């Protein structure tokens, strides 16, 4: 499964919003879809499903606040 599909599946599951793929540049925090505890779940799922370690201590919310930004970040970590 590619990064985009995996990330979108995880996000849809965590937020219950199946229309996320239509709003790839909308902030997940502004819309209330993600909170900090859901972000922890997201990171754990990414770790388990894609075997990547997200450097959580460097995680700036502004770089992880839309589906597209998350996909870019995850892609970057997978190729690192």
């Amino acid at each position: 499964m590619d990064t985009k599909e995996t990330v979108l599946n995880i996000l849809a599951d965590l937020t219950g919003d199946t229309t996320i793929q239509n709003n790839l540049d909308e902030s997940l925090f502004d819309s209330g879809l993600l909170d900090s505890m859901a972000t922890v779940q997201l990171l754990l799922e990414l770790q388990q499903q894609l075997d990547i370690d997200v450097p959580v201590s460097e995680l700036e919310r502004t770089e992880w606040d839309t589906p597209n930004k998350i996909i870019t970040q995850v892609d970057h970590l997978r190729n690192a």
Partner: protein
Amino acid sequence: MHYKLTNLLEHIDALALNNPSSCYQDEAGQHSYNELYQKSNQLAAYLQTLNLQTKAPIMIYSDQSFMTVVTMLAAVKAGHAYIPVDVHSPNERVLQIEEIAQPAMILAIQELAFTVQTKVLSPTELQQATFYQATALDSTQSVQGDQNFYIIFTSGTTGVPKGVQISHNNLLSYVNWMLNDFDLPEHVSCLSQAPYSFDLSVMDLYPTLALGGQLKAIGQDITENFAQLFKVLSTLDLQEWVSTPSFVELCLLDKNFQQANYPNLCHFLFCGEELTNSTAKTLLQRFPEARIFNTYGPTEACVAVTAIEITPTIVANYSRLPIGFAKGDTNITAVDEHGTPSCAGELLISGPSVSKGYLNNSAKTQQVFFKQDEQQAYRTGDLGKISADGNIFYRGRTDFQVKLHGYRIELEDIDQNLVSLAPIDQAITVPRYDTNHKVTQLISYVVLNQPLTDPNTALKKLLAANVMDYMIPQRIEVRTSLPKTANGKIDRKTLMAEVNRHA
């Protein structure tokens, strides 16, 4: 040293007066014990001049700051229980609590952005009142004995919160146990992360002050920004950590969260939800010099009533960790569904830290509080197994109360609040569990009476005006109908099974 405090306020005052060492560190910096003493006394003296109704509680619109602690102590010194209500609470919830509690006053640490009936002391007025000197505090009026010290509101099944009344004697029993049974060092430096409206905060606040220690506060704005959180955490020089297991799981995501970077961190105390074997195991590996304590207790019995040190042996022996042994002055028994004493069943707690009941709610109080051998007792709704040596194992609930990230939620509370929204006819909320029996998500199924575009987002927004953010389900799914039981009620168990097929 054996502690047997008889008056918590006098004990804290005795070590605070003229003591220049720091008792609290927040975003504004360090605050000394003497400052705590002077400001809380002066504010209390001022409150006594206002002719507030005797013994009526005072609501504190609170945040994670020194000023909140000053204000809490001032309220009890003036002779009033305090009700901490976090500034992140939705307006509707503050108003609900105001209506139930009928407070004599609201002390606003931050500006209230909405209208209330009760007289409010604004942040500026509150600041000024901490310098009040015209009259002295009459400490004979201070909260003592069986009088209420604080009242904390929790989720109620009817959609209306319940205020748990904790007396000075309840709190004293709890604090003495903390000081004697956890081997905490004097002048301990302790994390203060749990909001003061959540009774887990009492686990860091009063034992730390009673030990002449220092609280290191981090507010919600920091915990929600991970980059900032880890930067701040490592500078706090903590010795003691108090949090929910969920919060430490978040911290364990950072590889640098380990002993080398937290050399003095020697105590981890957990409460509020189940501590999983894997979290304890990881933590012991990361912090080989630290001692981990798992504790358990409902707000109704004052923070915690059981404890056990989680050693590597315990981790190796129990896949589901025990919650430990009852504190010395407390009796915990289990009863089966017929009320007959048993080694497994619903846990009953009796002892000096059990609350007198819910504020202005005798119906709910009578349902769950009773007397047992002259002691106040509480029917927890928690299921447990008690081993021959007294070690207790948590096994779930008798009802539909869940813990999500340490917060206690009645699923019916969410249902009621959903149904009260105009577009919703029926609603039912179910928890989704992971393989460690922990709730990871709440999912609500609703039947609408009108079409909505993007109902998931729209309904969450509407709900957010009425309930705490942790009570907003992660998913709200629209159905044309909901499954019913034989007697016509919505069938929560069928939906729970559907959601948890993996478990």
